[in-house]
């Protein structure tokens, strides 16, 4: 029960933090903000990995559902971060954009490890 209360507190605090962070976003960035935060919601990938990797002791369906979840969440994560990166680079002044690209701006292509 204590863990539950701790997690509920975390949830509530994170909601407040999210509200504080987002309230001042300029309209220009609404679309990248959405696709970026959408990629973060792909964190469910962690849950999917745990489900998919829980071994064969749970019959057929658990690993199958787990793998479907891993696939969907990975699309969400990889697609989300990449497309956000693509959009945001357009918002930067041209010189800065090429600089970031040269520095390896798409490093998260390796996200799925």
């Amino acid at each position: 029960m204590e863990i539950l209360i701790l997690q509920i507190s975390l949830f509530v605090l994170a909601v407040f933090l999210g509200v504080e962070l987002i309230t001042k976003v300029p309209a220009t960035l609404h679309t990248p903000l959405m696709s970026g935060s959408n990629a973060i919601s792909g964190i469910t990938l962690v849950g999917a990995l745990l489900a998919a990797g829980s071994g064969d002791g749970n019959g057929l369906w658990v690993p199958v559902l787990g793998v479907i979840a891993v696939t969907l969440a990975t699309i969400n994560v990889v697609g989300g971060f990449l497309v956000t990166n693509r959009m945001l680079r357009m918002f930067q002044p041209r010189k800065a954009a090429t600089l970031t690209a040269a520095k390896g701006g798409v490093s998260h292509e390796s996200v799925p490890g």
Partner: protein
Amino acid sequence: MNLFLVDGFYLLAAMLFVGGIKGLTRPRTAVRGNQMAAIGMLVAVVVTLLDKSILSYEWILGGVVLGSLIGTVLATRIQMTAMPQMVALLNGFGGGASLCVAAASFLGLTGADSPQGLVTLVAICVTLLIGAVTLTGSAVAFAKLQELLPGRPLGFRGIRGFNLALFAAVLALAGSLVSGSGDSNTLILLTILALVLGVTLVIPIGGADMPVVIALLNSYSGLAAAAAGFIMGNSVLVVSGALVGASGIILTRIMCVAMNRSLSGVLFGSMGEAGGPVMDADEVYAGKVKSSSPEEVSMLLESARRVVIVPGFGLAMAQAQHAVRDLADSLERRGVEVIYGLHPVAGRMPGHMNVLLAEAEVPYDKMQPMEEVNALFEQTDVAIVIGANDVTNPMAREDKGSPIYGMPILNVDKARTVVVVKRSLSPGFAGLPNPLFARDNCLMLFGDGKKAIMELTAAVNETV
């Protein structure tokens, strides 16, 4: 791996997400913010994989490779005009993943002899419900945006009652699961009903309200992840899901304010909205609409000192963003000041127009939000409206009986001359005639957005 260490890395991931979202709130730091969040994701995934509760890697590898492949192809191939569909699709995948995690967790519980804690069961039901609604709701939103389904509200009489009944049934099934009297069949039925609910919730919502729906589904996908975190007892899921859920809610609110509509009005009010006596389009336009030519407009533009370009969804449809940029370049070479006036709900998702203009390399300080540009219209010589309709409709300001009364609009009619580039006089998503077109200072330039703008640019360039 040491449990303490695992939690430490999860905390690091959560901190990177917070820092990332903070970065995303400013143009200068946004790219870095996105990269920070991506690194956070990488940390969370690697730590999870190294954790010893993972037994079989083969399955996982397959899913990860397939998912990365699809994700990369989607992200690199998608056109900027199709961003709303893309985000809807990704939202749906996230919701679907949470749904599968919840189902797998339930089956895992019944398979092994692990104690079925009340909290876990509640969390499973909540994740199933939100995940399923996000999955099919996003699929419907995607289909509407991709024009696989008509954009107008669809549905049947009593769809609200149907949804309420469906929701009650879902709650009853969830109740039986939580009380321990349900089995995997109950779970399947619950999932199916929740999937249907996702469809029937979104299908009666019209195309113009899509920015709100996408923002809301974005929030749902975060909440589903947070709920999955409660199932797994995993705090990084709880924190990041809550962050995304909150950001989605805030964006939803911003969109609602920009349309002067309540959230419940968007979600439940679109069907059978009476809206008082509807103005007859023929009566509004009769004999007062003036059609113009690119040559005539180019003469106006040449003598102008300030031109405001107002893009709408039609710009995206016509893929005219580069053509618009060329026109602006031609004008700027002649010393004309060009700015872009952007309504918060122009297009099909929040900030849609900004992304398109950024793609055409329009500097972002020239994209002015509605409040700032409205102060400038009275000192503007020409306002060019491209594919925007309802967001410029003066009825919102003047006609108290109009369904859009009170919606903040771009006051293009205050400019000395308004040029409207449009295919025909057909109404916008709100289905209303636009008295702007009949104003004395309004000229219509009929035609496809891209072609009309290119002709206009050519006409401007000719008269050196």
